[in-house]
């Protein structure tokens, strides 16, 4: 179970778009080895918060701290270099390319030797071996790593994206609506995979609208409201309707039983 150690946090983040303040002094903290769900109504600043954490948006104020070090992400590439991998909602995979190619897209393994490095000759054999190994580690039941991603079902594609993030993340995996647009069975397959990623020691930030999924899988739930963190709750001690009530403002966080806060 999650320890109290905080690996990734943000303090007082502010982001304004012209006259609109999307996040207004938002705090955030992720503990080692946990799945933290982030929920919030439309316009609560949930996606801006996540974009700031993944480097897609540069906050106007506030600080982001990873493993005790202050971070200044200017792009998703910066965040990725710092060890934060993000699985994007719109399936950030190249459909015509193979699973192995997608797993290593942008960080292909190249052959050794002067010629191999100069021409960036691909080490296809090694990539295939590692791809097979990584997918087996995560128990993703896909047989051939040389089939094109477009031959896979939506859930399997999402598993490829998750496996890729898990394979390269040093610190954190962020997942933006990974089960949206999936059927029940496929959604469960992805949830199962997210759990296995957590069990291997990587903390996961999960953004989702799907309350049953959030309650099934999250260790803690960050509730975002009106640009701020309204509360962090324990899904085992709060009902779904109370969580939704805090999210929509029907209930104040103070009205929740104190032991439901986490």
């Amino acid at each position, binding site marked *: 179970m999650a320890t109290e150690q905080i690996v990734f946090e943000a303090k007082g983040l502010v982001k304004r778009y012209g006259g609109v303040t999307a996040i207004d002094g938002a705090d955030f903290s992720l503990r080692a080895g946990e799945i933290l769900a982030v929920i919030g109504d439309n316009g609560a600043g949930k996606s801006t918060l996540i974009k700031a954490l993944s480097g897609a948006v540069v906050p106007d104020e506030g600080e982001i701290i990873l493993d005790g070090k202050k971070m200044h992400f200017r792009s*998703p*590439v910066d965040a*990725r270099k710092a060890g934060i991998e*993000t699985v*994007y909602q*719109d*399936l*950030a*995979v*190249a*459909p*015509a*390319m*193979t699973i192995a*190619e997608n797993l290593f*897209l*942008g*960080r*292909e393994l*190249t052959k050794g030797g002067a010629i191999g490095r100069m*021409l*960036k*000759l*691909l080490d*296809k054999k090694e990539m295939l071996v590692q791809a097979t190994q990584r997918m087996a580690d995560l128990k993703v039941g896909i047989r*051939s790593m*040389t*089939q*094109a991603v477009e031959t896979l079902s939506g859930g399997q594609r999402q598993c490829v994206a998750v496996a890729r993030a898990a394979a390269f993340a040093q610190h954190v995996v962020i997942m933006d609506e990974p089960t949206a647009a999936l059927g029940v069975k496929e959604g469960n397959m992805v949830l199962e995979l997210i759990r296995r990623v957590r069990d291997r020691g990587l903390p996961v930030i999960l953004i989702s609208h799907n309350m049953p999924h959030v309650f099934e899988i999250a260790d803690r739930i960050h509730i975002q409201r009106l640009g701020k963190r309204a509360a962090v709750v324990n899904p085992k001690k709060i009902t779904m309707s109370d969580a939704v009530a805090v999210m929509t403002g029907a209930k104040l966080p103070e009205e929740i039983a104190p032991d439901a806060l986490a």
Partner: protein
Amino acid sequence: MKSEIKNLPWTALGPWIALLAACSFFATQSDRFLSAENFSLILQQVMVVGVIALGQTLIILTAGIDLSCGFVMALGSMVIAKLAVEQGWHPAFAVGMGLLVTCGFGLLNGLLVTKAKLPSFIVTLGTMNIAFAVTQLYTSSASVTELPEWLTALGKTFEFGSAQVSVGTCLMVLLYVLAWRYLSDTAPGRHIYAVGNHPEASRLSGIPVERVLLGVYVLAGFFYGIAALLSLARTGVGDPQAGQTENLDSITAVVLGGTSLFGGRGIILGTLIGAIIVGVFRNGLTLMGVPSVVQTLITGVLVILAVAVDQLSRKGAR
């Protein structure tokens, strides 16, 4: 290697079937068609469009298109011819300058596509006219003859069995093999496919999308420069009207070769087959005595047909 072959889509066979069908048809129409002599002639005739189509394939793989290719090639060939013949430059420097001009046009196309974010169709439609006009102004629409031997060396042929093979044809095949291995065996090569297949996913994966695109347009320009040299070698004249049929024929070759106009899918060796199909049509129709205007009409129909068949087969595969 084995798995690569296993995973080739059945559409990879399409170009071969089309080539076989075209050859069978023309064999029934002309006795002279099916001879080693005639085939070596076809291969000599396709070397210019074949090398242009190499650049065209790279651009189409990134989901772009180049309508300026033939005209850029013509400008390059005139720069080489005029500098070597009229200015007395050493042919090597003249060729270097020609390559610089064609690569420069590639760079211009690439910058307009990546920095100004304009669609490649419009950009290259513009540079097509620019390249054509510059060529006419530069040459006063006059051809350049009496090229030094150095420039026509690629047109030389040697005996291979009963066929005459030109050095230029060998160069074309070599360039195809190199481009094929580059696209399939190197990280930058795979990035060209990735950028054409899903630019957003590529960007999020840390691939420098703009740099890949710029590189592709410049490399295409380089191939047009080589094609310019081949065109001089083949005809022995610097012709400011050259490249006009090759412009559309290169797109026909790419599409017949099975590369998707939507980018990210295709095998560059297919383009070579596509170029040979175009050559077979032009040669076969000539042997049948079909006038060249009608040949142009038929190749126009051919490109639309190829795109239509490609679209239908891909829809069927989903």
